[in-house]
């Protein structure tokens, strides 16, 4: 071999080395970089993680006001808790003697540990908020209607699992806050005993006691309870959430993407400029198959007012993700996750408060445990699940506050809902409840007639009146959902800010008696 040949061989080798990174980057995309509509499509459907997305997305779905990105925000918050949760598992020990110390280690000793724990906690809270808002969005845009009824039910399960994840995480630090919140939670699980005791059948039929033992693995909150809550928190519930979320997203896609109003093409402004469609590197040839009626030729427009998901949908989702992470980070930098004293089974925290999203329920529980803790929540979740099966109308689908009555009805219902919950609570706080009026009242009556029961009846009666007035189930649903939303918010605020030691009412935290 001549010297010149060696030179060109070396030069080629050098060029190969220089080109290797670029070639490596190119090989990551099986069908080339997403530069044309064709390769953009392949970028989506050829990727195991992205192929849940449609290849093209309707322009309506990309407007912020369609969804406010709440579903993606929920998923993002979940991913953040997943990643930070795995990090916390490096140090967390799920045994009562050491659990509290390991959290303290994470907080004070482990580098970045405090930040990670804060993010985990805040992302969990953000997830609860975004999941609730996401549900409200889907409800108010009537996006649960045919063919999306089943996906709404899947969403209900996801909501319950999200709350379960948040609640099981509450015990793990094994501080006073955790211990007493779980004691109260476990006894709420046992509260069907209020009914069976009153009927004197607990000896033969005790679902309450069984629920508590299954939850705690013992009669008391101890090592068994901690390991059960840990297992639920890091394994069972995340797995359940993962599989149900996969079904949820798949159904969004298969049920035709996001809900759009019927007249969506008229409602949308014309596309800003011409979307590039089949403009670069065409690898297929098209011919005119039919003469289409209409005045505007479709040249230069995507089919059916859609745009390629890559980059449009991808970037929108990325923006929602980044915003969620940003919010979690800022909250974590500003506010530390709380950690009280080590759990003491002899001295309850006073006031012993559940996480904020359960404080509305705790407010009801403070009148009677079974109705407030199991009865009302069960009625609410069942009622929510039934919505798409009762409302089979079509008017207003895909529009905010769509349906008979619309925005005005929602405002009116909000006013009514607020007035009702404030009136019932004011009555209960000012004048007491049944036992104060009638000390000898039978226990079944006290159990059943909770302010929550009264409120639910008022709301139900109101929404039946709305159904009759508007001649529409959807109008009734709008009224009922809005009322319950107001009730939830008011009870949560009262539980959070106006309840102090002994669950007494205080106008301000500063009036709490010292103890």
């Amino acid at each position, binding site marked *: 071999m001549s010297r010149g040949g060696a030179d060109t061989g070396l030069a080629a080798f050098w060029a190969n080395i220089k080109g290797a990174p670029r070639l490596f980057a190119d090989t990551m995309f099986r069908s080339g970089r997403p530069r044309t509509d064709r390769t953009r499509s392949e970028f989506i459907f050829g990727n195991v993680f992205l192929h849940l997305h449609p290849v093209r997305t309707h322009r309506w779905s990309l407007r912020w006001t369609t969804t406010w990105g709440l579903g993606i925000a929920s998923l993002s918050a979940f991913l953040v808790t997943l990643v930070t949760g795995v990090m916390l598992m490096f140090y967390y020990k799920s045994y009562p003697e050491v659990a509290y110390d390991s959290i303290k280690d994470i907080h004070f000793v482990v580098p970045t540990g405090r930040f990670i724990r804060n993010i985990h906690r805040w992302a969990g809270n953000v997830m609860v908020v975004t999941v609730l808002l996401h549900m409200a969005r889907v409800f108010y845009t009537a996006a649960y209607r045919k063919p999306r009824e089943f996906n709404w039910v899947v969403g209900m399960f996801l909501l319950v699992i999200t709350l379960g994840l948040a609640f099981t995480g509450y015990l793990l630090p094994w501080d006073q806050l955790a211990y007493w919140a779980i004691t109260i939670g476990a*006894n709420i699980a046992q509260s069907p005993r209020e009914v069976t005791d*009153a009927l004197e059948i607990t000896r033969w039929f005790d679902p309450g006691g069984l629920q508590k*033992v299954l939850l705690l*693995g013992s009669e008391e909150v101890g090592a068994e309870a901690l390991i059960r809550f840990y297992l639920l928190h890091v394994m069972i519930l995340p797995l359940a959430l993962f599989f149900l979320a996969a079904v949820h997203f798949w159904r969004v896609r298969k049920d035709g993407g996001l809900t759009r109003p019927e007249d969506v093409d008229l409602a949308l402004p014309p596309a800003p400029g011409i979307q590039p469609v089949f403009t670069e590197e065409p690898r297929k040839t098209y011919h005119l198959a039919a003469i289409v009626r209409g005045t505007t030729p479709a040249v230069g427009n995507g089919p059916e007012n859609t745009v390629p998901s890559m980059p449009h949908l991808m970037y929108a989702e990325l923006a929602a993700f980044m915003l969620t992470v940003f919010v979690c980070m800022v909250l974590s930098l500003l506010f530390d996750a709380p950690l009280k004293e080590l759990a003491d089974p002899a001295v309850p925290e006073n006031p012993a408060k559940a996480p904020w999203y359960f404080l509305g329920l705790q407010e009801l529980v403070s009148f*009677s445990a079974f109705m407030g803790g199991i009865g009302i929540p069960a009625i609410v979740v069942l009622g929510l699940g039934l919505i798409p099966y009762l409302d089979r109308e079509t008017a207003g689908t895909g529009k905010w506050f769509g349906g008979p009555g619309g925005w005005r009805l929602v405002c009116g219902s909000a006013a009514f809902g607020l007035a009702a919950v404030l009136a019932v609570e004011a009555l209960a706080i000012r004048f007491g409840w049944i036992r104060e009026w009638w000390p000898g009242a039978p226990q079944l009556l006290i159990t059943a007639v909770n302010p929550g029961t009264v409120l639910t009846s008022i709301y139900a009666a109101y929404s039946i009146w709305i159904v009759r007035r508007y001649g529409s189930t959807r109008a009734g649903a709008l009224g009922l959902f809005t009322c319950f939303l107001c009730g939830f918010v008011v009870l949560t605020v009262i539980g959070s800010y106006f309840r102090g030691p*002994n*669950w*007494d009412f205080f106008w301000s935290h500063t009036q709490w008696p010292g103890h």
Partner: protein
Amino acid sequence: MNERPSRLAPEPLPRRDFLGLAALWAAGAAMMFALLGLLRLPKAAVLPSPSKRFRVTLPESLGSGEPFVPAGRSVALFRDGAGVYAISTVCTHLGCIVKPMPDGFHCPCHGSRFAPDGSVVKGPAPRALPQLEVARAAAGTYVIDEGETVPAGTRAEA
């Protein structure tokens, strides 16, 4: 007519289909019973819980109607003219520990109030605080069993 089944006159349920279905149902039933058995797993036959019986010596100075709470126990002991009795301090509402006060017991969690004999006065508690079994072991020393309730008004000899 006992002809062999043909394509024109098939058996009502072909033998192969019958065997296949029988196998399928047998497998399904086996799985179901195995699963039903496994459902017992989350509830242990013996529940881990600390001993509910303990021994306590009442201080000589304990006055009538004055509560004595043994360290680490959710029980309040009282002495009166008739004898000694113990009242559980676990709230019957949601399991918080009630505080003995001059007028009875106050629950810090949801504001339940109990009379000195344990009966409900106010709040969401569904039942009276149970009175627990007390047995005299020696002079001034008693064995209390938190797992056994006795009717209100029962007294152990002082």
